[in-house]
């Protein structure tokens, strides 16, 4: 029997997620000021990290596809955008759930939240284009251009939403991340979750790429069987 490396991935993800969830609910101490709500952080931060990673992969896949015209790169970019949008949505929802008790509102126009929301819209647009593309090959090339352009806008969006709230650029942009260092147990918990989510991302990516390739084959076969194709 041929062994599928994906099966190993599934086992690893399941183990890492269980360890992470155990740590979140039973092991890590409750934060002093925010209370139990702070535990959302262990899901929220890894989701955001995976979202950014996924969109960087879209950029890499798009660039590689335009250079090599190798269909596999296009599938990677497409699949990564889908998984990235899902994790961005997860980051936004968990952020809002945390914001309600802590900030007193589901949504505030915090620069980082705004950036995440704009990213969400960019890649929803990317996927919307892909699903309405009239020709698969041309659509793939154009989608690659959108993937590159969208990612190029990220630093500019970051600066603009940071400055918009009237803060002086020098103070906010190059601010060192000098928040209180996390206690060891919290650090370990978030690291385990980040690892689990990254592995989950990789697994979903492989699965989606396979599925997209099958969809592609089906489309091609159908086109070959239809008598009058333009």
């Amino acid at each position: 029997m041929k062994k599928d490396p994906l099966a190993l991935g599934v086992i690893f993800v399941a183990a890492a997620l269980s360890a992470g969830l155990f740590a979140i609910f039973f092991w890590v101490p409750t934060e002093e000021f925010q209370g139990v709500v702070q535990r959302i952080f262990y899901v929220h931060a890894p989701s955001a990290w995976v979202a950014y990673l996924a969109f960087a992969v879209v950029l890499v896949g798009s660039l590689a596809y335009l250079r090599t015209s190798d269909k596999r790169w296009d599938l990677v970019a497409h699949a990564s955008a889908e998984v990235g949008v899902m994790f961005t949505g997860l980051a936004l929802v968990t952020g809002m759930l945390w914001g309600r008790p802590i900030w007193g509102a589901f949504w505030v126009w915090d620069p980082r939240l705004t950036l995440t929301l704009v990213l969400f819209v960019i890649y929803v647009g990317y996927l919307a284009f892909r699903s309405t593309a009239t020709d698969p090959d041309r659509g793939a090339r154009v989608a690659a251009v959108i993937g590159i352009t969208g990612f190029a806008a990220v630093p500019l969006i970051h600066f603009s939403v940071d400055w918009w709230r009237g803060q002086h650029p020098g103070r906010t942009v190059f601010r060192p991340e000098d928040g209180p260092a996390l206690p060891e147990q919290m650090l370990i918990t978030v690291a385990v979750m980040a690892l689990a989510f990254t592995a989950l991302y990789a697994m979903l990516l492989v699965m989606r790429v396979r599925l997209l390739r099958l969809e592609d084959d089906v489309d091609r076969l159908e086109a070959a069987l239809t008598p009058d194709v333009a």
Partner: protein
Amino acid sequence: MSKVLAVALKDLRSEARSKQVAPVMVAFSLSLVFLLTFALPPGSGDAPPPEPQAGAVAVREVIGPLVWTSLLLAAVIGFGRSASAEHEGGMIEALILSPVDPAALFAGKALANFLFLTLTEMAMIPAFALFAGVGITPLWPGILAVALAANLGLVAIGTLFGAAAQHSSARSLILALLMFPVLLPLILAAAKLTSTLLLQGSFVGATHWFILMAVFDLVFTVIGAVTFEFVIQE
């Protein structure tokens, strides 16, 4: 360079005959002006308001965002029209076959779009000032500077995504969805600079927004010129 001009002139000539982009953009943007200024509270312009000066400041603060969001909407409509006009007549195929490299094609089409957008602004910004009751006459060089910097980025993205959206079955919707988030930094910059200028009569304390716009213009003009070939390729 002469090829860029030739492409731009071709677009302008076909526009002069068909009139399907600029008039629509101007009419659409003016209707937005009426709609939005109608929503402003009465007496909120420069005219002596009921309470001393309260409303005047507020309008000068919100007018920047209002003007630039309206222009973004007009740009989406106009650039969509100008790109689909090219595809409907099969003109794009002729252009691909012509001995003009894609970067020059991009620059020429962007130049034509630039002129359409500038024309729209020339009608819309004074109309906005008039209907909102805000005097801008002494500030026009500053407004012109903001508009020129914003137009470069707007046409770079609009020309690239306009051509990209032609490969979708939901063109105008996709174009809007693609343009809004990517253009956010540019619109924020233009809105902030316009409001700053209207409130204090100068750009003091906001000049870093010009740098942001310049970087935006440069980055997306280069990306547009380099990737345009993949967008139009058959």
